[in-house]
């Protein structure tokens, strides 16, 4: 890495750290890019050479946070027991519990994902490749164990589960729902889908 490139990377990390602290203490709306720059000890201009907007910074902060979630999942998933629907329920419940530690920030991040000012590289809301992979592996294992029918269309089922997972968060935005409430809704959605992918009775 050239000196210039590594300096840019260091600036980027400083900005992200400062932004995370400010977002968590003051909230997303109340935090300005100028405050982020001040705390990171960089100029406002150099913030904007790395990020296109405040929403863009938030998007990156939220993506980085997920490392902790997936470290947790990597520990837990091998120990999951029970039916495939129950394992799926546990995986989604862990996600809801994780994101509701910072509900307002998470909702601000979803809203920002539709915002105009986002850079083209940022990912649309609901696309979480790692979650997709975990869910896919879990169902594929179910096929091997025999509690999921062999004719399942994996892509479609995974996609429907992710849509439910992502949009159930609107209960948090609209009704102030907690992780438990959203997990309960998701549990029932998983049950309905599972009725369709259980192996046919012999």
């Amino acid at each position, binding site marked *: 890495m050239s000196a210039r490139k590594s300096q840019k990377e260091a600036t980027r990390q400083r900005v992200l750290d400062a932004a995370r602290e400010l977002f968590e203490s003051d909230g997303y709306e109340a935090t300005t890019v100028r405050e982020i720059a001040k705390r990171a000890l960089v100029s406002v201009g150099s913030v904007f050479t790395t990020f296109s907007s405040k929403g863009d910074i938030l998007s990156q902060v939220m993506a980085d946070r997920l490392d902790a979630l997936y470290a947790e999942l990597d520990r837990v998933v091998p120990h999951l027991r029970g039916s495939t629907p129950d394992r799926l329920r546990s995986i989604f419940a862990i996600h809801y519990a994780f994101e509701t530690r910072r509900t*307002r920030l998470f*909702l*601000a991040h*979803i*809203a*920002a*994902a*539709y*915002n*105009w*000012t986002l850079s083209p590289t940022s990912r*649309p*809301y*609901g*696309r979480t490749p790692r979650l997709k992979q975990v869910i896919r592996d879990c169902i594929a294992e179910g096929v091997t164990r025999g509690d999921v029918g062999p004719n399942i*269309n994996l892509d*479609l*089922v995974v*996609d*429907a589960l*992710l*849509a*439910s997972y*992502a*949009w*159930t968060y*609107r209960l948090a*935005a*609209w009704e*102030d729902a907690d992780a438990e409430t959203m997990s309960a809704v998701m549990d*029932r*959605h998983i049950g*309905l*889908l*599972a*009725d*369709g*992918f259980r192996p046919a009775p012999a």
Partner: protein
Amino acid sequence: MKHVSGNIEVAGEAEVRVPTRRALAKQQTRAKVLSAARRLFSESGYEGATIRDIAAEAGMSTGAVFANFADKSDLFREIMVADMESLVEAMRDGVSRGRGVDDTLLKLFMAGYAFYKSRLPLARAAFSISWQPDQGAELRDLQPVQMIQDLFTEQLTLGVERGELSQEAEAKLRSQMLFDCYLSNFNEAIFGGWSLEALQAKAKDQIRVILAGARRG
């Protein structure tokens, strides 16, 4: 005597229905502001369009805009309501042409995607706002928004009544899942540039997968 008082009431109503010149001017101003706002929200998103920009686009002062609308979110809500009302109409039209529960649901999905095909920036702004805890709750409570969700549930309930789906189909919950897919596919349209044909193929598969469990006895 009843007869007489009835006549007076009718005369009174007729008078109210004829708008005064001032009321007409106000209506025209509102319409002008709304169409300017619609253009700017479509071009620069919700955040990017200020009341000042909207006033300039409409060729009037910011004061004149504020005389008609409380704030920017008030303006956006009006546009949303008008769109949602048209969308409900388009969806009802689709439902009337549907054959069987799968096809009718597909027509609901497609009415939405076809409606927003030429208005994707507005859809994007609406999603952004609907996720904000304060403003989102206001949008959720709009009557046409409720009606759209109810249309999905109604189709499943009818499917159960017609015997296409089992009694244990859980129409309400299952239609929520369909609605989640309906909304989530907007991402493909907004960010992936998907065609209506591609959206239709995906929606068709989603409907099949979600209804599968309601078909078994």
